[in-house]
């Protein structure tokens, strides 16, 4: 079977909806409803981007919020997951298997179920409308997968390396810092990217924890744009927003494609 045709189909299938958004975002509202080939000659504009970027709050604010939450969640997750993965790898096989299975179940869990109780918690602790507080549930939700991925990476390191470091008098912190973590850098990068993507895209918790307009993360802002009447028949503006909201991810995926793939596939192998 030839490869070219299915490959073309797969790329078109992935890209066409995205390209259509790009196209739409550059058209005036009038041009969008025109029919026929002549319509392509006119109606090009950057006004949609201007409208989105000059909104109140401006669109970049949502990008900034999402970046902040993503960075904080990723940092917190790694901080907890790295020692946990090391600790898990050092457990007896039976206990390790049991904990791993529970973590796997948690990683698969449809977490949307959890939002009500988490919202109650946020209210009780006055964490509503606190961007950084989102890092706690995000880290909690990301930890199962992160620990499993890093545990598998620790298991792949030859045990003799750490033994050699112990004999030379390195303590646990020195062994992690000087020997094990540098070797785990690729796995840590993969895990970090996956956690960041999750935090960037998370919706139900951000939706219920954040109500202030200027604190919204990108997914919630998008949904709010979709539901609001501020932009009347605003498909050009919608599209400009989806392009702006998608661009950082596009960059991330292009740059870190290898880490994302290895993170996902590692996840599959150990599962």
């Amino acid at each position, binding site marked *: 079977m030839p490869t070219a045709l299915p490959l073309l189909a797969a790329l078109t299938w992935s890209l066409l909806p995205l390209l259509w958004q790009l196209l739409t975002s550059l058209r005036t509202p009038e041009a969008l409803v025109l029919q026929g080939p002549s319509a392509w000659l006119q109606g090009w504009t950057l006004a949609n981007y201007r409208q989105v970027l000059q909104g109140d709050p401006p669109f970049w604010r949502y990008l900034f919020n999402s970046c902040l939450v993503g960075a904080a969640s990723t940092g917190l997750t790694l901080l907890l997951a790295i020692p946990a993965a090391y600790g898990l790898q050092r457990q007896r096989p039976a206990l390790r298997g049991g904990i791993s299975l529970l973590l796997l179940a948690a990683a698969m869990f449809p977490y949307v179920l959890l939002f009500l109780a988490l919202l109650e918690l946020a209210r009780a602790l006055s964490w509503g409308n606190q961007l950084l507080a989102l890092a706690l549930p995000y880290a909690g939700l990301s930890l199962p997968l992160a620990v499993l991925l890093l545990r598998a990476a620790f298991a792949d390191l030859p045990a003799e390396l750490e033994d*050699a470091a112990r004999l030379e008098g390195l303590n646990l912190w020195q062994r992690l810092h000087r020997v094990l973590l540098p*070797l785990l850098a690729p796995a840590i990068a993969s895990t970090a990217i996956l956690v960041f993507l999750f935090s960037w895209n998370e919706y139900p918790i951000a939706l219920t924890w954040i109500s202030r307009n200027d604190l919204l993360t990108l997914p919630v802002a998008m949904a709010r744009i979709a539901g609001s009447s501020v932009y009347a028949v605003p498909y050009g503006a919608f599209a400009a927003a989806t392009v702006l909201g998608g661009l950082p991810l596009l960059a991330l995926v292009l740059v870190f494609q290898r880490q994302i793939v290895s993170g996902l596939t590692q996840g599959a192998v150990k599962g």
Partner: protein
Amino acid sequence: MTTAGLHCEQLSRRVGDRLLLDGLSLSVAPGESLALLGPSGCGKTTTLRLLAGLDPVSGGRIRLDGEDVTHSPAGERQVAMVFQSYALYPHLSVLANLELGLEVRRVPAPERRRRIAEVLALLQLEGLERRRPAQLSGGQRQRVALARALLRQPRLMLLDEPMSNLDAQLRDQLRPELRALLHRAGHPVIHVTHDQQEAMGLADRIAVLEGGVLQQVGTPQELYHRPANLFVARFLGRPGINLLAGEAGVQLAIRPEQLRLVESGGLPARLLRREWQGSQQLLWLDTSRGELLLLAAADLTPGEQLQVTWKPDDELRFSSASGERLA
């Protein structure tokens, strides 16, 4: 009893209900090299890890230069180990590999440099300082691992199958070098191997382990000629020792090189097959006392019907029940 060197008494290791090492007692003097020899799973690597402090001891004592280190952490024992994989830190250069341990032990920088330069010269590693382990040959890696171990200024040097990652030719070449180096250093050396040739080439004495129990310890000659039991007799020597049907309750054994072909008066034997090995040849013989292996000159062209004999003094006699050698 002297206090210098390594002494372990009744050393045991139990994991769950499995006894990996059962009451091992050994002494190794400074400058002496001991090989721990045995099939895989016999407890030799377990012993090494107990001595290094990498696994906890279940029973017995370890004393190093008079100090009881049975329960000291690995990092405080001043024991060095060359691992089977060499365990060089792959992300660090040769120099950084050697320096890491000195650095965490807070050796001042000038002294670090001096000692590293010394050991690099000793092991002929100059010029490789900036290389990563992946850029080194197998022999070079072994020497870096050895250099790192020597920099530990160990009270005891452990080597875990140090030759198993090298090809056969390189092994023959490096064995004498390694032996000379280990002898010069002046600390007790224990090295683990399943290869009897390596054990005989590197060690002053050999300890044979089987099933977590020490079978015999002695010089290679003692072990070969006066094995304590049937296991040691069968484990040492290639081609393997011949077992003969003997009187009730006694198992006779004779080494293939001690069998001779004679014209008459010997045990009648029929030639089954032969294997030419260059300097000599190996004959498989069918006799009334069982199948026998005989080592003969390479140029001999034997007929099919032969007669074979041996000196009664060369016979080894073992108890059929216990396997112990009978005097």
